[in-house]
């Protein structure tokens, strides 16, 4: 098999072994302890975390080589001491979903945009930008989407308190 061939339906094991071979110790695989979850028992979820330098080549590899066609979701989490971006990426042929966690420091919230790879990530990244203030480098139009343009705060950060919140 040539290097640039697309593997149309890489199985759960194939995906893990290929990713390990390609990226080595830059990826940290996690296993779930859940007993009753059917999707995990039947090997349809891969959990891994990486750093923000690796995310763009990783996504390119997932899309170009392993045929993970769809960026199902991109979302942010505010862990107070740092921010986190979580990607969910799906392959339609095997229904395997990869969950990638990437940590972003508070003082420098920059990360590479995956919109050039998956057009579907466009609005997810815009939304994450406006709600968390994470800046996606290389995004074609990083503007506020849901909230009015005049807003200057990032409402989903834990430092922003709602009415009635202590």
């Amino acid at each position, binding site marked *: 098999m040539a290097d640039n061939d697309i593997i149309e339906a890489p199985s759960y094991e194939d995906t893990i072994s290929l990713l390990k071979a390609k990226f080595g110790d830059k990826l940290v695989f996690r296993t779930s302890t859940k007993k009753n979850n059917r999707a995990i028992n039947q090997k349809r979820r891969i959990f891994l975390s990486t750093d923000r330098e690796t995310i763009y080549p990783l996504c390119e590899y997932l899309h170009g080589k392993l045929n993970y066609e769809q960026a199902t979701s991109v979302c942010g989490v505010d862990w107070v001491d740092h921010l986190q971006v979580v990607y969910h990426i799906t392959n339609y042929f095997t229904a395997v979903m990869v969950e990638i966690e990437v940590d972003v420091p508070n003082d420098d919230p920059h990360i590479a945009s995956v919109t050039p790879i998956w057009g579907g990530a466009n609005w997810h990244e815009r939304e994450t930008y406006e709600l968390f203030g994470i800046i996606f480098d290389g995004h074609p139009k990083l503007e506020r989407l849901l*909230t*009015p343009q005049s807003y200057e705060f990032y*409402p989903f950060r834990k430092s*922003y308190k*709602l*009415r*009635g*919140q202590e």
Partner: protein
Amino acid sequence: MDMSLYPHAVAMSADEFMTWSSAMINEMLSAGTKKTVDNLTGPIWAWAMRNSMHPLHFGLACCAIEMAAASAPKYDAERVGMIYRSSPRQTDVLLINGWISKKIRPDIRRLYEQIPGPKWVVAMGECAISGGPWYDSYNIVQGLDQIVPVDVYIPGCPIKPDAMIDGFMLLQKKIDAYFKRGVFMED
């Protein structure tokens, strides 16, 4: 008003004319002309208006689905003369059926101003009445009455189509009262 009866009115400035004409109207009011005309024509206008309420075709949220269901065969809101028009110019009732975010707030105000008077506003559902379940949200206006005057509140989350028709029948009573007060020479 027949201007030939008041030749001096022609030489007035606009401000003078305004004060003078309002004085004239007050005079006519005290003379009972207005009352007579109102008593004669009021019931006709009230009948026409209350049987032909055209709400704005404007779906916001959950209650919009029930608004559609109200015109469905089971409830059939056309029986009371309700037809949804899409252009605010041709409507009488602004029916707000959902929560109002800060982004839509100026548009709702503008729609209200585009409706030619006499106009009525109906707040449908908890969100339009008081913000409803989004009481602590950072992006929701807590109640429609903060931006436009509201005539009828229809509570429910979401309200049922029969409750909505009932709300419009309440509005009919309000329209009756409005025309009983009299509209002759109001503008």
